[in-house]
């Protein structure tokens, strides 16, 4: 059997190898064999493994998402929904949204630990390549309409079919992030102004739908023909559909291509018309602003949270220290947005 494991912790890898072999034997038949297992970088809150299985002369390319070490140690990220729920969401999305297909789910008390397997979709996730490389020039033309359609598909999944998810409307998110910001006792006038403006101009409420929660380049697989898959559903919740649309517009997720409000590749009017054509609500660009301001504020406070890990001594890395000097990026973005509201 050709089997290679590239990993630091062999105990972990052996456990995964055994569990994958047993699963493949059941799923693809006793003649199947595990060809290759490798830990992929990225994904701080979950392990991601690339897995190849050979069965009946065919190679099956898979991705394993697994809780670090197989067990949920603690509430690492209070917002993350857990892998079983994430797998269930991928099943709900299949058919209407380009997404990986779930092939196996492992419970926390299994030999594997808490994890699921899905098919591996080829393509690129690195934003700067997608936005710059010639290989994706056709994809960039298609991407805005494809994202509009995918978002409409996500928001149309009947809530009654969904697993239990937290419901977090915009004002509840504002409360939460304001509390975190005040807890740091590092006053920032631009954040105060954004918080106060958001409070005074709340959007009319909208019936809660499934919100992906982190729909942006980095979490999308893009190939030469455009959007191939929507990944990373761990921040999914029930909320306002405009949150997803606006998060894709937050300047931090335009990766330097500010002139293209949608993810650095498209215009908002095009996204909104594709969204409406695919059955989504008719939103005006102005209705997205409140949520984009909230999005920039949230990202700024997330940067403060990461810097706090340095300040508190929890993570002494230079990278955590340096991210504190990215908060001002969100301040200029907030001012650019608020200027239009004065």
């Amino acid at each position: 059997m050709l089997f290679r494991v590239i990993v630091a912790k062999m105990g972990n890898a052996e456990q995964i190898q055994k569990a994958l072999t047993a699963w493949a034997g059941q799923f693809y038949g006793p003649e199947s064999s595990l060809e290759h297992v490798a830990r992929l970088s990225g994904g701080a809150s979950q392990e991601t493994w690339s897995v190849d299985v050979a069965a009946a002369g065919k190679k099956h390319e898979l991705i394993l998402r697994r809780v670090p070490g197989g067990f949920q140690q603690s509430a690492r990220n209070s917002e993350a929904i857990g892998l079983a729920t994430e797998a269930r969401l991928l099943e709900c999305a299949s058919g209407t949204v380009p997404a990986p297909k779930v092939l196996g789910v492992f419970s926390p008390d299994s030999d594997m630990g808490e994890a699921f397997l899905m098919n591996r979709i080829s393509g690129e996730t690195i934003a700067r390549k997608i936005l710059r490389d010639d290989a994706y020039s056709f994809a960039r033309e298609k991407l805005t309409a494809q994202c509009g359609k995918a978002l409409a598909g996500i928001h149309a999944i009947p809530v009654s079919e969904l697993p239990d998810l937290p419901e977090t409307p915009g004002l509840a998110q504002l409360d939460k992030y304001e509390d975190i910001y005040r807890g740091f006792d590092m006053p920032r006038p631009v954040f105060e102004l954004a918080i106060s403006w958001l409070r005074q101009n709340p959007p009319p409420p909208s019936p809660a739908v499934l919100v992906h929660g982190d729909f942006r380049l980095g979490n999308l697989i893009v190939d030469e023909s455009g959007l191939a898959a929507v990944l990373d559903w761990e921040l999914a919740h029930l909320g306002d559909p405009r949150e997803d649309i606006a998060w894709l517009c937050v300047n931090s997720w335009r990766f330097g291509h500010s002139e293209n409000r949608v993810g650095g590749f498209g215009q908002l009017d095009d996204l909104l018309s594709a969204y409406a054509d695919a059955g989504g609500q008719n939103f005006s660009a102005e209705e997205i602003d409140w949520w984009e301001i909230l999005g920039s504020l949230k990202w700024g406070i997330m940067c403060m949270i990461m810097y706090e890990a340095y300040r508190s001594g929890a993570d002494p890395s230079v990278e955590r220290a340096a991210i504190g000097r990215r908060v001002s990026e969100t301040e200029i973005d907030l001012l650019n947005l608020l200027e239009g509201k004065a």
Partner: protein
Amino acid sequence: MHDAPSQKEMIEAVKAFIDNTAMPSLKGHAAFHARVASNVLATVLREMDIRPEAESEEVQRLTNLLGEAPGQSAAVLNQKLCEQIRSGDISLTTPGLLSHLKTTTISQLSVDQPGYSGLKAR
């Protein structure tokens, strides 16, 4: 006290060591952190150049905006500005507020991330 080498020279020397010696011989995560470390030192060098004048102008603007007595620090004045925005005494439409915050944030970004796209937007 002596200043040879100066603070600036010492930081420049460490940055050159990271860039030209340490970084090329490191791999993976360590190489990434070396790059971040070099960027941090570049931020410190920019701050040494820009901050003194930018902060004294910021204090001047804050003093005028808040109608405060002169001689207070940027930290104290910013704390007061935050309180007044929070209480609603100062808002988006208060004359001078947006231009003050923009000037301050642009100075801050010219230290923190001078290449950031938001500086060019609009």
